[in-house]
């Protein structure tokens, strides 16, 4: 592009566009053109005009504005990038977003009970999630498309025995027979897969189950049209995008890099509150099948967890709690928090193995 001898003032603008692209912003040539035209339209009276035009036309998300600012300074003022640009990796953004909220909630509980902080100290550790094949996963992948819970879409499709009369088709066939309606064509609502939100407890007490939960989560994201997966520990992390890689080993590597609080302390209540506090995440739960995989061993006060469960049960289509402890048929929830939250939980069932989790999720549609 440079060889075309562009006017010199254009250089920093093109530089900004290519910098943005190199740093993972999706920038189309069309946007670059619009940016240059826009600057021309604005005058520009100064650098703030150029900056505003850049933010508006490159459609910079709010979380990535600091990153954009740094690149803008580099392109127009020749200032060096900060040592580590905030949120440099694309996938990190969600986690940053979420953990910001989570830490806010954490600070609050810390004031409630100073001893709690020591007990549930953030033992941040990265454990590699190396996976092995399991027959249960293969079965799930095969059966999921047909058996995952569904909801009615507002779209209609022609059907022999539909609930409503398809006026358009009926009229068309009536025209052919000179205005006489010989047969009523019918239509029914299409069915869409209901969103499934999987919240996985990755705290120390769930240590032995984390690997298989992650493998299942990967299978779910791959098989389902609409699935969202989060991990709950000392913070909340959205791992859906990491799991969207088809190769399981690579996906789990990405998850391991993303989740910093595996085997750490448990603050389920705070993590659920953080989930509700981000409107976009809470929106995922609306009308969704919400499945929590956790032993419910809440070490903090029980109120935040009970309150969060209460609120989630009102947003979600169903709220299911799968715990490995329920593998024992005589199981009754022991912890205060889980016992108090029980009235708002649709069913408390076995979550001890991939098979148990998979079969529970596949029967959700039937038990309604």
């Amino acid at each position: 592009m440079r060889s075309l001898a562009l006017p010199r003032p254009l250089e920093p603008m093109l530089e900004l566009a290519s910098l943005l692209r190199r740093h993972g912003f999706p920038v189309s040539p069309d946007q670059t053109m619009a940016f240059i035209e826009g600057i021309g339209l604005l005058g520009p009276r100064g650098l703030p005009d150029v900056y505003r035009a850049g933010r508006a036309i490159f459609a910079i998300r709010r979380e990535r504005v600091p990153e954009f600012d740094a690149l803008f300074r580099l392109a127009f003022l020749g200032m060096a990038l900060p040592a580590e640009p905030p949120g440099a990796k694309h996938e990190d953004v969600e986690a940053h977003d979420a953990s910001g909220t989570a830490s806010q909630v954490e600070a609050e509980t810390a004031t409630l009970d100073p001893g709690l902080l020591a007990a549930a100290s953030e033992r941040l550790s990265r454990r590699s999630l190396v996976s092995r094949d399991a027959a249960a996963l293969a079965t799930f992948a095969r059966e999921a498309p047909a058996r995952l819970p569904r909801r009615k879409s507002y779209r209609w499709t022609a059907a022999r025995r539909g609930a409503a009369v398809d006026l358009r088709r009926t009229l068309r066939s009536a025209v052919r027979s000179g205005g006489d309606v010989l047969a009523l064509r019918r239509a029914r609502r299409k069915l869409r897969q209901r969103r499934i939100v999987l919240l996985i407890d990755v705290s120390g007490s769930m240590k032995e189950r984390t690997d298989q939960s992650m493998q299942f989560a990967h299978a779910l994201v791959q098989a389902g049209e609409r699935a969202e997966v989060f991990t709950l520990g000392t913070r909340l992390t959205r791992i859906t995008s990491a799991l969207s890689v088809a190769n399981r080993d690579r996906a789990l590597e990405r998850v391991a890099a993303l989740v910093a609080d595996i085997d750490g302390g448990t603050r389920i209540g705070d993590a659920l509150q953080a989930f509700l506090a981000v409107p976009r995440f809470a929106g995922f739960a609306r009308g969704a099948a919400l499945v929590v995989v956790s032993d419910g061993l809440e070490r903090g006060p029980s109120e935040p967890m009970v309150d969060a469960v209460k609120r989630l049960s009102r947003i979600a289509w169903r709220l299911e709690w799968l715990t490995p402890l329920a593998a024992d048929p005589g199981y009754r929830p022991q912890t205060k928090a889980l016992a108090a939250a029980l009235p708002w939980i649709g069913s408390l069932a076995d979550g001890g193995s991939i098979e148990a989790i998979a079969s529970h999720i596949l029967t959700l549609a039937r038990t309604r």
Partner: protein
Amino acid sequence: MAVRSTIAGIGSPQKLQEALVSAQYLAGEDLATAAYLALALGKPLLLEGAPGVGKTEAAKALGGVLGRQVIRLQCFEGIDAASALYEWNYARQMLAIRQAGADPVDLYADAFLMERPLLAALRNPSLSLLLIDEIDRADHEFEAFLLEFLSDFTISIPETGTVRATQPPVVVLTSNRTRDLHEALRRRCVYHWIDYPDPALEAAIVMTRASAVAQSTANAVVAAVGLLRAEPLAKPPGIAETIEWAEAATLLNSQGASWPQAFRRAIGVALKDHDDHIFIAPRLAALLPGEAA
């Protein structure tokens, strides 16, 4: 892409900002710049922000400034062609067939076509502003369709042919960001994130919009709302709630309630969730504006 530096007599972001003020909408410089660029470059304007920050109001004010009729398409889950584009009036078509008897009848004449927002905006692009509200509620299929619509501004009706806009209409999209929009759609738009206004601006908005609120009341309410928004509430109060709270408290005060009492009794217009009330109740006294007058 049609580039016009002056639209309806507006030649710069500053002019647009002034014009919006006269339409009772106080916009920041960032919003004015984004809106001006969208108009000048002939691109759709995408406004994102928390519920209640005035995204829809911005679009309506823009319509007022440009002297265009705002055609609003409210999105919802499962929105379909019949509610977004057009629908045939089947009952009238059927009657027409019956009445015509042996005579030929044009079933697909304009009289039988019921316009929906997208078609209406397309047929009258110079006099309308198309507001596509809460696009995040619609599903992905509709978003993909919209992408196509926004790039070539045509609608094809199988029975009659293609309707094409003579010029690209002014389009404003809003989103509450309950889900991420498709990247391709964002790229096609000029984007602006509307934040809650800073206290001075919000107080000015209260003074502009509310009827009989004293400046001191406005300041006090804005400060209290700022504190409420910092709390982890299910429904943080938007700008409309701020205005209503100021008005309600002023009304109660004029009927003899003391200021803190008036604010406390009127809290129902600011917080509209039972859990939020319970959550905030123990600390309410500290959050409420004290002596406002």
